[in-house]
């Protein structure tokens, strides 16, 4: 394995551009073998020259996490940030979970990072105390030195490494964590480590990884989920200059999980030659049962299903009785289509099979899942899969699913050389793990003031569970728990129902996951109710949220997911939700911005991934119905925030992602095949379509870090994606016609 690592390193260093994170990762392993850096923690080493080497075990896809977690270590270490080198970890269970997904990097690792830094600092202080023969309590780590105030003595960390490395590692109870007042980096404005590289094209992504002698693969995959290869003719392929050979990849065995989809690969000496060869392939498929999948008829089927009672997943009070006695009832249906992640870097990996082991460089959110999936595909142990993690050109959940890494490994075994797999944009859009399409039916019984006395919310969608259980028909606990069964409103009668539905394509998680459709329906409906009651939206939302309280969530037949956190530590707190509503309203100037011709304001508030968000969106529509978004205000209470700079950037980006969700592309299938193929027919927001300015208002909070700010702002879908139709949050009757431009695809209007 060591040999292969060195070969791989040469492959990287041999390029015209300087070393990236990956190379550094390999260098550290090699340095370990030669001159052992002192490693008091799996996350931290200090070299004899004093350089602190901090291991980033989570994947970097733009959130800043590979800078921000090391900043936490450096802070407790009392390290000088200029003397810190960040190394990207390979996949290894010794780091704990590396699945950079679910907005939990800070929540799950903040304490561990602080302990790693504090452990090393204490040991350096102990080494200094020993050296100077003074009590350790009088020695203090300070900006890469240990100082003894009484005598004025001072020793650089590097000088103390040798002695510190001989000391026993202190117990957790002995650690002295820094008080907040002494934080150097936590909660401060510090740029991430990759900014400069990104301005000169020097960041190394999965698509940039190379291994000596590798071939480039372009793969023709089954056009329909579960289709089988009947036959193929590659006679014309072999005439393409640069093509080396073709190879087949077996289809998956259900459930598909993260297995390769299968197909026929063309292997060549360049990306271009492989793609040209692929065009000459003639392939026949047996399409199987999904060959008749059609989005228009599926939509009709889903919208019909939501008219029928489903499985009850939350039940408070007596909804039926309240509806029977209601003076007024309001109903609405909403539909959200399949959506594709479309990260700017498509799935990409290079892998080498050699002597029964695999080494891969991959743009992956989860290197341990790579180890497991590749091991499964190759019939080897996961310990025999070494996964180096590159930078990711966007992830959004797509790169948690390592089917593309399996493809590279399987092809490498067949051809006896390293193989690089880069999906084309067409591959990416046609073979994604799509965000689920969903139908939602909402019904409210209203009192004389237009406030709901009963609330029914039915959802029907293909579950992410279908990726792991081919027979899955109902939503999983985590899908139910994303802004649906945890509705926080003060409504005495409330029922949520889930109808059964089978998947026809691969369904996966994308950014805000199930919040996208639940929040869309809920906040659209709230907006309609406020309009029907002729009430100010802000006042109406505050009224719905009711008194300040922690809302106990007790779903039917399952536990409340709550991001796997106890409700006692992370309650559904209406006071925090109301506060972000008030801040967003105040900062946006809500009270003074009345809708006028061609201009409207919308607001929505949502709790998502343990974080409270309210968004006010200002929309202009011109005479020709063209929509622009001059301004967005988003108030966020995410608990403790480690990097306010990255938190703001994530939320700014979330507003753009939300704009794409609300106003742009959809994925559809006809005859089982995905219709869309590239950014021409799956458009995403561009600079002239995105919000012109997003003002982010971070709410100071003593609550524990909820969302991994700076991790993806999942709730962009809630606060913002709720504007999916545009109509609910943005639409105002005063805006000139064309609200259809906003209106997504509900079954009304």
């Amino acid at each position, binding site marked *: 394995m060591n040999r292969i690592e060195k070969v791989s390193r040469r492959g990287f260093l041999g390029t015209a551009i300087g070393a990236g994170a990956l190379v550094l990762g390999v260098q550290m392993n090699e340095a370990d073998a030669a001159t052992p850096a002192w490693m008091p923690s799996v996350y931290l080493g200090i070299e004899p020259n004093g350089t602190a080497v901090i291991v980033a075990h989570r994947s970097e896809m733009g959130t800043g996490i590979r800078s921000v977690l090391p900043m936490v270590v450096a802070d407790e270490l009392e390290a000088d940030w200029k003397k810190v080198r960040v190394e990207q970890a390979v996949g290894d269970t010794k780091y704990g979970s590396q699945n950079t997904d679910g907005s939990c990097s800070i929540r799950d690792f903040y304490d561990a990072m602080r302990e790693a830094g504090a452990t090393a600092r204490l040991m350096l202080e102990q080494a200094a105390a020993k050296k100077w023969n003074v009590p350790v309590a009088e020695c203090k780590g300070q900006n890469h030195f240990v100082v003894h105030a009484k005598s004025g003595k001072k020793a650089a960390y590097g000088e103390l490494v040798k002695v510190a490395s001989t000391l026993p590692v202190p117990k957790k109870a002995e650690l002295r964590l820094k008080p907040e007042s002494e934080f150097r980096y936590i909660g401060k404005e510090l740029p991430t480590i990759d900014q400069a590289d990104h*301005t000169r094209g020097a960041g190394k992504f999965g698509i940039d990884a190379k291994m000596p002698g590798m071939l480039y693969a372009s793969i023709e995959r089954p056009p329909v989920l579960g289709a089988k290869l009947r036959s193929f003719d590659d006679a014309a392929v072999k005439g393409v200059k*640069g093509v080396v050979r073709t190879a087949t990849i077996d289809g998956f065995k259900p459930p598909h999980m993260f297995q390769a989809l299968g197909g026929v690969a063309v292997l060549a000496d360049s990306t271009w030659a492989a793609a040209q060869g692929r065009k000459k392939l003639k392939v026949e498929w047996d399409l199987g049962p999904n060959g008749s999948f059609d989005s228009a008829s599926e939509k009709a089927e889903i919208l019909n299903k939501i008219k029928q009672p489903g499985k009850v997943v939350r039940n408070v009070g007596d909804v039926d009785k309240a509806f029977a006695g209601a003076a007024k009832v309001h109903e609405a249906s909403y539909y959200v289509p399949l959506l594709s992640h479309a990260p700017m870097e498509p799935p990409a990996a290079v892998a080498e099979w050699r002597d029964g082991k695999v080494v891969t460089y991959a743009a992956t959110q989860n290197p341990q899942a790579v180890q497991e999936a590749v091991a499964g595909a190759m019939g080897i142990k996961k310990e025999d899969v070494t996964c180096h993690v590159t930078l990711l050109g966007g992830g959004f959940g797509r790169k948690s699913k390592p089917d593309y890494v399996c493809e590279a490994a399987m092809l490498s075994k067949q051809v006896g050389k390293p193989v690089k797999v880069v999906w084309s944009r067409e591959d990416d859009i046609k073979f994604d793990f799509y965000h689920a399409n969903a139908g939602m039916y909402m019904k409210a019984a209203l009192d004389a003031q237009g406030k709901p006395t009963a609330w029914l919310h039915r959802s029907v969608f293909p579950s992410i569970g279908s990726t792991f259980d081919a027979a899955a028909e109902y939503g999983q606990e985590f899908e139910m728990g994303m802004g649906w069964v945890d509705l926080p409103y003060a409504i005495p009668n409330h029922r949520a129902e889930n109808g059964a539905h089978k998947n026809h394509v691969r369904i996966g998680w994308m950014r805000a996951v199930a919040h996208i459709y639940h929040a869309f329906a809920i906040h659209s409906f709230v907006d309609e109710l406020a309009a029907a009651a002729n009430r100010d939206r802000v006042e109406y939302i505050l009224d719905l949220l009711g008194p300040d309280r922690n809302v106990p969530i007790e779903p039917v037949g399952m536990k409340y997911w709550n991001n796997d956190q106890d409700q006692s530590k992370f309650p559904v707190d209406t006071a925090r939700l109301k506060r972000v509503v008030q801040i967003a309203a105040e900062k946006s100037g809500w009270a003074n911005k009345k809708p006028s011709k061609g201009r409207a304001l919308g607001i929505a508030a949502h709790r998502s991934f343990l974080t409270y968000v309210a968004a006010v969106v200002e929309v202009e529509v011109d005479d020709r119905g063209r929509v622009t978004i001059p301004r967005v205000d988003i108030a966020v209470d995410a608990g403790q925030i480690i990097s306010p700079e990255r938190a703001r950037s994530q939320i*700014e980006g979330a507003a753009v992602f939300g704009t794409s969700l609300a106003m742009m592309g959809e994925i559809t299938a006809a005859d089982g095949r995905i219709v869309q193929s590239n950014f021409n027919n799956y458009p995403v927001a561009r600079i002239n379509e995105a919000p012109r300015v997003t003002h982010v208002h971070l709410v100071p909070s003593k609550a524990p870090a909820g969302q991994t700010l700076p991790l993806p702002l999942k709730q962009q879908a809630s606060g913002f994606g709720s504007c999916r139709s545009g109509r609910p949050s943005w639409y105002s009757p005063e805006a000139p016609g064309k609200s259809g431009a906003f209106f997504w695809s509900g079954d009304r209007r």
Partner: protein
Amino acid sequence: MIQLKVNGTAKKFDGDPEMPLLWYLRDVLDYTGTKFGCGAGLCGACTVHVNGEATRSCVTSMKDAAGKDILTIEGLGAKSEHPLQAAWKQCNVSQCGYCQSGQIMQAAALLKTKPKPTDADIDSAMQGNICRCGTYQRIRQAIQIAAGVKA
């Protein structure tokens, strides 16, 4: 044999003249700062300068690049010293960073023709460059800073 200049250095290429410049830069020369995003001129991730003009290298064949001067992000300012690169750092523009080479090359071409771009100029020049992370407002701000126009 196709001859061209890349970042000031003369190069010769005797492969498929239909191969897009993008793959020549990435696969042959290892100038991987220029990114693949769509292969169809729709996203701008592959933007380089051809004889000074912002050009989508994914839809520019080698035969069309023959005799031309190519500038990639690596040639714009290898030490990140171009005013746009400095402004990009000042604004912490990048998130994942993948599209930013193309964004900067596009912006550099804009500033050559319009040293003091208006908001509309920026919209018009930059709308071919997609950033899925959504860094647009910082891109706009960084261009304005580099151009010395009011942000």
